[in-house]
Each structure stands twice: as structure tokens, then as C-alpha cells.
């Protein structure tokens, strides 16, 4: 009793620590928001005349350019609420603001040309004419003031023509009048920015070498199990020695402690592979890689991407789908008009059939990377994207799975997946719908044929299946900062293994979750799971998790 109470206090302390961490992370994201709103074009640039006078044609052309280059951040109506805006600090400007309207074409042209992070410099992304056209279009969102374009910078922050050569102005950059031209100085400023970027890149070990990855701190309270905290840090090392070659290594460092103070630590290598670019539509590689079987492990499982604190049953620790395998792969994509097709093919050691464990015989072990026979696994996935917001795919894996000495037994795994992410304006936010279903068939075999292991002989139809369907909604278009960072999630899980097999079960679970996105890659999650099992007692659970993407 005493012991339990103590644990409760410790638990509360840990939760407090989590909240403090979250607050720090929030603070950090706000810190980047500080630069004052004083971005001004130099006088000579602001005075530049628009050589593409406004016309129906110019505006129509400008609208097209706006939609392809500006809309993602500034939004369809220029309100600064495009789909990417939520990730950016400072936020994209509202182009219908009178502050934009009051600027001259020349000033806006200069800003589009130069950029100011996170806004890119369009010098190399759009031609001069296209940049002027897009300004003609922006004028229809932010009409110019009735009078002539105002003289820029009434506050005298800028240098007037003829008074002096070079002077420092906003952001410590140089502007000039005579004898150096503004173009010269823009060029110089670009070089300085390039140097700053290079300095940042040249921090020892960061050139072509990136350490990214993810981390999570979790808390689980499940019926029939003692509640526990858990932790995981998974560094991902990317090294790109040439344009065509990429090496990747990822390893999970995990810690967990249960109530009786049994703790375990683990180092789990998840990825160690090399990828080579053959051409624009084909990559080949090999090593230990995440298997493109379905989408979950390949696309969604990091704790800052998965919207719920746990894996779907079918892809979890007792699931029926592969995670990482050792072998070689080829993959790529090809456009078909406005649609796209993707393909993955691989040959690996494949999973291993468990034959001797009285609690698991008949199921596949996906985390044993060495092969136990000469038969290899072959698999692949064909993906289809009719629109960029929707991806659907079919995957299969066919493997010889039995260890030498056991009877010949193949396994055929198949999966279908669908992922749809759409900003739905009438609903004021982004809707995500994801679903994947997996079918596993292992050839009939007799386990423990002589009864020497104490659970046989036993044989059963070895068909397994399961899947999940997840629906999430995030009110990204809400005016409230708190509300637009909340996300509501529900997921249905199913996993059926043969009831006559060792450890066989029919389990389904429904989860309800609420996430708070502290930054685009830091999330605090809470979820409740209602569990239903045919054989074992149902184990409802409460989960909390703080997930980080680095």
C-alpha cells in the first residue's frame, strides 16, 4: 500500500516535469517569433516602376503563379492562412492588410525577390516578369491606395539618395544609394545570407551528415497491468557522401520501469541501409530497411507523426506485419498525368515461423533478422495517388519461413492501405482518414509433432487478419491559437489470430485521443482505449505521451 502511494507521488512529479518540458518547448517556439515587423524595401528598390502594367492578362497570369508559388502559405484569399502557414514562424503576412496595400510595386517586387525566412527568395524560383505579374495579381487582393505609391520609410530608417554611400538599416543588412547600386547591395546581402547558411551547415559533422530522429516519453495505465512510464529516443543518422548515395542508420534507445521496479533498457537497430539513385524514377539499396508493407511503419510510426500514443494492433508488437527486414530493395515513382504511381520491390531474409514456443507457435517473428533457411522473402507494394491528398496501395510478401528441420511452410502476407489528408474549409480544418488491412496465411503445419515440447502435437488453419481505421480532425483554420493546435482522433483496431493456436485471440479496440501540437513536431497526446477480447479479459487503457521529432 505504502509502495503504491509513493509511486503515485512520483507519477505526479513526472507529469509536472512533462508539463514544464512542454512549457519550455512552447517558449522556444515563441522565442523565434520575436523579430519586429519592420521589413522595408530600400528606397531605390521601392521606387522601381512595374514594367508589366496591370491588365486582365497579367492578372490572370499572376493568379496562376500565385496559386502555384504563394498559396501554400498565404492562402487562397491571401489571408496568410494557407495549409503550410501553421508550421511557420513568423506567420505569413495577410496580403489584404492595408500595410501591404500601402507599399509600392517596387517594394513588393524587392521583397518577393529577396525573401525573408521562412519566405523564400524567388530570385531563382520565378523569372522577373513572373514576379511582376504576381504583384499585379496581389494588387487585386490588396488594391493600391487611391494616391500614388507612398514614399517608403517615413521614419527615416532608410537612407535617402545622395546623402551617403553605405549605411546599415534593418536586420543589420546594407543598403546604399551612390555610388554603389541597390542591385549590388542586394547581391551582397544575398552573399552574406548564403555565408550565414553555410556557417550553420559547416558545424563539424553536419555537412551532408544530419542527425535527426525522434523521442517519446509515455505513461500507460492498463487494466490488469501496473501503470508505467516509458521512454524512447531514436536517433536517425543520415549521411549523403554524394548526390546519388545515402546511408541511413536509426536505432531506438528505450527504457521502461514497472511497478515492481523491474526495469529494462534496450538498443534496437531499426534501420541500417544504403540507397543509390539510379535515375529520376528508380532507387536501389540494401541493408536493414523499413519494409514498405502497408504504410504504417514506413510512413506513420514515429511518435511525432502517429497521432495516438500506441501502434495499431495489427502493426504492434504482437501484430502480423513486418517492420524492418534485411535484404535489397528497388523503389521509385512515376507520374501519370496529374496522378502518380509508386512502386517498391524487395528480397529479404523474411520473417521466421515460431515452432517451439508453447505460447506463440504458429505466429511469425518479424524481429529476427537472420535467415533460418535458404528460401528468401519477396515482397512489394504498388501505390496510387489519384490526387496528391490521397494515397492508396496494395502490398504483399511471400516467404519461406520454417527453420531448417521443420516441415516446409510458406507465408503469404497481403495488405491494402489508404491515406487521405484534406483541408476542408467548411469544417474549418484538416481531416485525416487512414485505414490499413492485413491478411496473413501460413501453410498448415504440425507443431510439436512428437509432444516433446509439452503442447503438441497441434495443428490449425493458420489464417490471421486485422486492421485499423483512423479518423482525425484538427481545426487549423480556427482563429484561436489553442484550438488550431488541438487534434481529435479516433481509431478502430482489429486483430484476429486462430483461436485454436497458441496465444490465439480475437481482439478489437476503439481509441479516442486528443493531441496538443506544441510545435509542428512536438506533441502532447492523451488517449483512452476500450478493449474487447474473445478469450482473455479486456484491458482498457489510458495513455499519455509526449512525442518529439528532431
Amino acid at each position, binding site marked *: 500500500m505504502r509502495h503504491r502511494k509513493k509511486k503515485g507521488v512520483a507519477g505526479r512529479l513526472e507529469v509536472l516535469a512533462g508539463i514544464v518540458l512542454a512549457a519550455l518547448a512552447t517558449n522556444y517556439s515563441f522565442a*523565434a517569433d520575436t523579430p519586429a515587423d519592420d521589413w522595408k524595401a530600400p528606397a531605390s528598390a521601392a521606387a522601381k516602376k512595374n514594367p508589366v502594367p496591370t491588365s486582365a492578362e497579367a492578372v490572370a497570369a499572376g493568379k496562376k503563379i500565385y496559386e*502555384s*508559388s504563394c498559396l*501554400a*502559405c498565404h492562402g487562397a484569399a491571401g489571408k496568410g492562412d494557407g*495549409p*503550410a502557414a501553421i*508550421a511557420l*514562424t513568423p506567420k505569413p503576412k495577410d496580403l489584404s492588410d492595408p500595410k501591404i496595400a500601402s507599399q509600392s510595386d517596387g517594394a513588393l517586387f524587392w521583397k518577393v525577390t529577396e*525573401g525573408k*525566412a*521562412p519566405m*523564400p*527568395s524567388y*530570385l*531563382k*524560383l520565378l*523569372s522577373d516578369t513572373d514576379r511582376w505579374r504576381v504583384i499585379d495579381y496581389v494588387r487585386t487582393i490588396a488594391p493600391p491606395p487611391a494616391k500614388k505609391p507612398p514614399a517608403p520609410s517615413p521614419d527615416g530608417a532608410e537612407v535617402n539618395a545622395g546623402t551617403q554611400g553605405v549605411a546599415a538599416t534593418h536586420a543589420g543588412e546594407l543598403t546604399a544609394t551612390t555610388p554603389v547600386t541597390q542591385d549590388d547591395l542586394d547581391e551582397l546581402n544575398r552573399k552574406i545570407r548564403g555565408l550565414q*547558411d*553555410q556557417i550553420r*551547415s559547416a558545424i563539424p559533422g553536419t*555537412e*551532408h551528415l*544530419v542527425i535527426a530522429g525522434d523521442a517519446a516519453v509515455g505513461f500507460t495505465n492498463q487494466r490488469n497491468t501496473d501503470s508505467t512510464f516509458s521512454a524512447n529516443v531514436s536517433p536517425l543518422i*543520415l549521411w*549523403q557522401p554524394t*548526390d546519388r548515395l*545515402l546511408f*541511413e542508420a536509426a536505432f531506438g534507445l528505450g527504457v521502461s520501469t514497472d511497478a515492481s521496479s523491474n526495469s529494462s533498457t534496450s538498443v534496437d537497430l531499426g534501420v541500417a541501409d544504403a540507397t543509390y*539513385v*539510379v*535515375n*529520376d*524514377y*528508380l532507387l536501389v539499396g540494401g541493408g536493414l530497411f523499413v519494409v514498405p508493407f502497408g504504410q504504417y511503419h*514506413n*510512413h*506513420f510510426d514515429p511518435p511525432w*507523426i502517429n497521432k495516438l500514443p500506441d501502434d495499431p494492433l495489427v502493426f504492434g508488437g504482437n501484430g502480423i506485419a513486418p517492420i524492418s527486414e534485411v535484404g535489397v530493395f*528497388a*523503389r*521509385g*515513382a*512515376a*507520374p501519370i498525368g*496529374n496522378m502518380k504511381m509508386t512502386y517498391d*520491390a524487395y528480397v529479404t531474409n523474411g520473417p521466421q515461423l515460431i515452432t517451439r514456443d508453447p505460447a506463440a507457435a504458429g505466429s511469425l517473428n518479424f524481429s529476427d533478422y537472420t535467415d533460418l533457411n535458404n528460401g528468401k522473402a*519477396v*515482397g512489394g507494394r504498388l*501505390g496510387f495517388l489519384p490526387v*496528391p*491528398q490521397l*494515397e492508396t496501395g496494395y502490398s*504483399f510478401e*511471400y516467404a519461406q519461413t520454417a527453420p531448417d528441420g521443420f516441415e516446409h511452410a510458406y507465408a*503469404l502476407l497481403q495488405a491494402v492501405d489508404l*491515406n487521405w*489528408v484534406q483541408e476542408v474549409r467548411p469544417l474549418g480544418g*484538416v481531416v485525416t482518414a487512414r485505414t490499413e488491412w492485413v491478411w496473413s496465411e501460413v501453410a498448415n503445419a504440425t507443431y510439436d509433432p512428437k509432444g516433446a515440447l509439452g503442447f503438441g502435437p497441434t495443428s490449425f488453419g493458420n489464417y490471421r487478419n486485422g486492421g485499423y481505421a483512423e479518423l482525425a480532425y484538427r481545426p487549423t483554420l480556427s482563429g484561436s491559437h489553442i484550438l488550431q493546435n488541438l487534434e481529435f482522433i479516433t481509431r478502430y483496431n482489429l486483430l484476429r489470430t486462430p483461436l485454436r493456436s497458441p496465444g490465439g485471440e480475437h481482439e478489437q479496440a476503439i481509441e479516442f485521443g486528443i493531441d496538443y501540437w506544441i510545435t*509542428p513536431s512536438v506533441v502532447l497526446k492523451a488517449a483512452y482505449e476500450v478493449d474487447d477480447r474473445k478469450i482473455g479479459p479486456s484491458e482498457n487503457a489510458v495513455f499519455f505521451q509526449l512525442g518529439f521529432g528532431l
Partner: protein
Amino acid sequence: MHFKTLFTFALIPLAWLLAGCGDNAQPITAAPASQPSAPAAPLADSQKTGAQLWAENCARCHNMRSPQSFSSAQWQTIVMHMRSRADLTGPETRKITAFLQASH
């Protein structure tokens, strides 16, 4: 028998790509948009800009990350990683990289 049939199916698209596309890969580093585009691609690539491809492809799986999250050199490697994870084509990879790098 089953095994061989499946294996053959897996190899058909590979053979087609190897034979049909040849070696036309370009360096990942972006070329300025003002330059004439690379020799006609064997497959009709989309006319989409880097900004569009960035918004469409990244958000399908995870939240958008600000271009400021990484330096230009880091983006080059990270987009290459994502090319493999998210099955991006070469032109898509180059346009997205150029867009993210232009923010620095």
C-alpha cells in the same frame, strides 16, 4: 510455382524502368528556374512548383516543417531521405529542395 509467379510480377516494372528511363538522373542540387529545363523527361513530369510539391507531399504524412528548421545543406540530405521514404521522383525532389533552400 506461386513464388515464381509473384517474383516475375515484381520484376516487370523494374525491367521496364531500367530499359525505358536510362540514366538521366541529375544532381539533387537545384538548377535555377530561369535556365532551360533539363532534356525532355521520358515521362511527363508535373508542372507543379516546389512550393506546391512541398505543401502536397509533406503534409500527407506529417505536419509541415518550417523551411527554417534546417540549413540548406541539411535540407538536401533530408529531402533525399524523404525521396526514399515517400517515393518522390527526381524532379519533385529537386524542386522541393530548391524551394526549401531559397528560404535561407
